């Protein structure tokens, strides 16, 4: 009996010991990586290397139907990292980008932020495709105490509420927000003869923000216009036809849609088949405004299926502005990847270079120094000069709308008849309580570029 009891006891002790050993082992393996300050052999002109590697965590959608978008972003940031490393890195430190999939889900993205910062030791986070996800991620940035550069997600609530009102200063957005999709779109709409506007939008934050701004702005510019129908399509809708026929019932002659990604392809195809484009035809083209229509995936997939004369834009369109920096970037991107750069690719490219810049200027990885350097700074980038506002950390730069044209000289459709406004004039201003007085702006609007 005693022998048995002792054996039992030993078994327990062994189990406990094993448990502690395993626990300790795992704990040791997963301890926070130390920041190493290496004395390098040949110092760069600007000073000592800060770390062996500067790691940037890049979170985007890499799985599911929208997985192209992760790839579009990756092409930009990886190109930047390769260029920078070839030229000697950031003050001698190599740049490494760690890619993680948000799957378009807020909880997944938040988990990846923590994983990137804690497990991988990333110094910066860039990316985020979805407006729904970015709000959740912004909340976490003060906890992990790293900077986030948003390269795609557009909701104005990020900058107007999370950054300006709540004071989350660790987040910067370097792409145009829904002001492009809602406000500037309304300026374009105001120039078109359409008087009955309908919308088909994705049923989440981005759709709602865009439509709200579009309606508010257009009502002030064109009091004669009516908003006759709305259709909200769940993300991942594969059958738009019932929605299309229900809005066609209200006889619109203009359509505003911020559908993007795969849903957009399906929507455009089914819209053609349902005759929606015919409903919005006018002398100069189609009263069809699709703010993210000039995204590279849409242009490559839909190509000639997207009717000429539709008004589309993006957060960057490769042909604008016609500067040397932009031309160089487009050429390098095509050589590296065989595709024209997408807007989120350009933003990712700029984000990496921006990180390089602020490290070189501040010669540190101190987050407060970086924030101070970025606020009210002007940055040269392929998309133009970006002015980063202090109040809401939003980069201000303009992107034009244009009409689709199928030009056999190019593998994808191009834009003609580019129109835009100086960015400061269509971006909402802090304190964001009132919309700017548009009627005055409308008089001097829309130069041809």
């Amino acid at each position, binding site marked *: 009996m005693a022998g048995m009891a002792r054996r039992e006891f030993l078994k327990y002790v062994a189990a406990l010991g094993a448990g502690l050993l395993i626990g300790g082992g795992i704990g040791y393996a997963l301890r926070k990586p130390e920041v190493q300050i290496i004395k390098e052999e040949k110092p760069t002109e600007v000073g000592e290397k800060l770390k062996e590697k500067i790691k940037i965590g890049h979170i985007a959608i*890499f*799985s*599911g*139907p929208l*997985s*192209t978008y992760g790839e579009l972003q990756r092409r930009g940031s990886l190109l930047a990292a390769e260029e920078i490393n070839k030229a000697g890195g950031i003050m001698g430190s190599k740049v490494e980008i760690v890619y993680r999939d948000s799957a378009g889900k807020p909880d997944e993205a938040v988990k990846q932020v923590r994983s990137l910062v804690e497990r991988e030791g990333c110094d910066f986070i860039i990316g985020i495709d979805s407006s729904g996800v970015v709000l959740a991620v912004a909340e976490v940035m003060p906890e992990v105490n790293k900077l986030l550069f948003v390269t795609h997600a557009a909701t104005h609530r990020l900058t107007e509420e999370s950054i300006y009102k709540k004071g989350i200063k660790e987040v910067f957005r370097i792409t145009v927000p829904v002001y492009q999709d809602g406000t500037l779109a309304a300026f374009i709409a105001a120039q078109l003869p359409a008087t009955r506007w309908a919308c088909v939008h994705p049923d989440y934050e981005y759709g709602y923000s865009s439509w709200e701004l579009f309606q508010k702005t257009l009502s002030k510019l064109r009091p004669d216009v009516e908003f006759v129908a709305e*259709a*909200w399509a*769940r993300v*991942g809708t*594969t*059958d738009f*036809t*019932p*929605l299309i*026929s*229900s809005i*066609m*019932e209200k006889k619109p002659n203009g359509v505003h849609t911020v559908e993007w990604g*795969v849903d957009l*392809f*399906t929507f455009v*195809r*089914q819209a*053609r*088949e*349902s*005759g929606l484009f015919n409903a919005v035809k006018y002398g100069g083209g189609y009263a069809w405004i699709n703010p993210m229509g000039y995204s590279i*995936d849409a242009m490559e*997939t839909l190509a000639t*299926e997207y009717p000429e004369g539709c008004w589309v834009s993006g957060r960057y369109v490769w042909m604008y502005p016609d500067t040397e920096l932009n031309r160089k970037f487009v050429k390098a991107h095509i050589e590296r990847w065989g595709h024209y750069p997408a807007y989120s690719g350009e933003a990712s490219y700029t984000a990496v270079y921006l990180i390089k810049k602020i490290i070189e200027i501040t010669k540190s990885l101190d987050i407060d120094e970086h924030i101070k350097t970025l606020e009210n700074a002007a940055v040269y980038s392929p998309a133009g000069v970006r002015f980063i506002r202090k109040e809401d950390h939003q980069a201000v730069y303009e992107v034009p709308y244009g009409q689709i044209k199928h030009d056999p000289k190019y593998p994808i459709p191009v834009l003609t008849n580019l129109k835009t406004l100086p960015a400061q004039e269509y971006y909402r201003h802090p304190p964001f309580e009132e919309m700017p007085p548009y009627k005055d702006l409308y008089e001097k609007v829309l130069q041809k570029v």
Partner: protein
Amino acid sequence: METAAIAVQAMLGMSMGMLYWIVSSGLTFTFGVTRVLNFAHGAFYMFGAYFTLSIFELTQNYIVSLLTAAAIVALIGAVSERVLISRIYGLPVPFQLVLTFGLVLIFDDLVRIFWGTVPKMIPPQFVGSFNIFGRSLPIFALYFIITGIVIALVIYLLLSKTDWGMEIRALTTDRETAMSSGLNPSFLYVTSFMFGSFLAGLGGGLYLPISSASPAMGEHIIIYAFIVTVIGGLGSIKGAFISALIIGMVESLGAFFIPWMTIALPYIALAFVLILRPEGIFGEK
């Protein structure tokens, strides 16, 4: 709302219903004979779309691609049945469901590995629309309705006029008697699985030109197939036909009148039927 608009919307609903019918008929076939509710039926639908896509890239002929793809899916169905499904006959339902769910996970990722994660499209095949009382009805709606009716006729003929069909009916309606009267069950299992998978693949290939092939499309359709099959009565072909049309029209008209509720409508219908008449419209108690 004008009646013409409602009529057109209903026809749209009927055409989607026909797609649900084509897929669900396959599921009903495989369930009726093997008594296994195959989650992976949606994956077969997905394979149908993807194979149609790839074969189209080679042949540029849609009909050929469609039928060949469906035939390939039938083969995949046969192999799945012999290698895996046959091992779970007689197991409790949860195990069957989970095994076929595991198959879904495998098939989904296989598609991602071979075709990538981004949805792919082929050039539109059903171009144009009819003008009905001033409203447009896309041409694909007509194709779907015609195909659906053809499938219904084919199944009717197969079940009533062929020996194979009669054996299937015997096995579905009165299992014990059928088993003891000398049928070859394995042959019936494999062939019904092949036929069911063929139908699923055909559905996917039909759907491809109006939308796209994507790794998530299987999950999307399988829930509809389950709902249609259960509402119609598990194992009832007639039931599947009727309930598929009902679900299609409910969704379509719902989008017209109560758009905010549309995504929940199929589930509401399911709960409604299950509570009031759990065996389904044509099911037996």
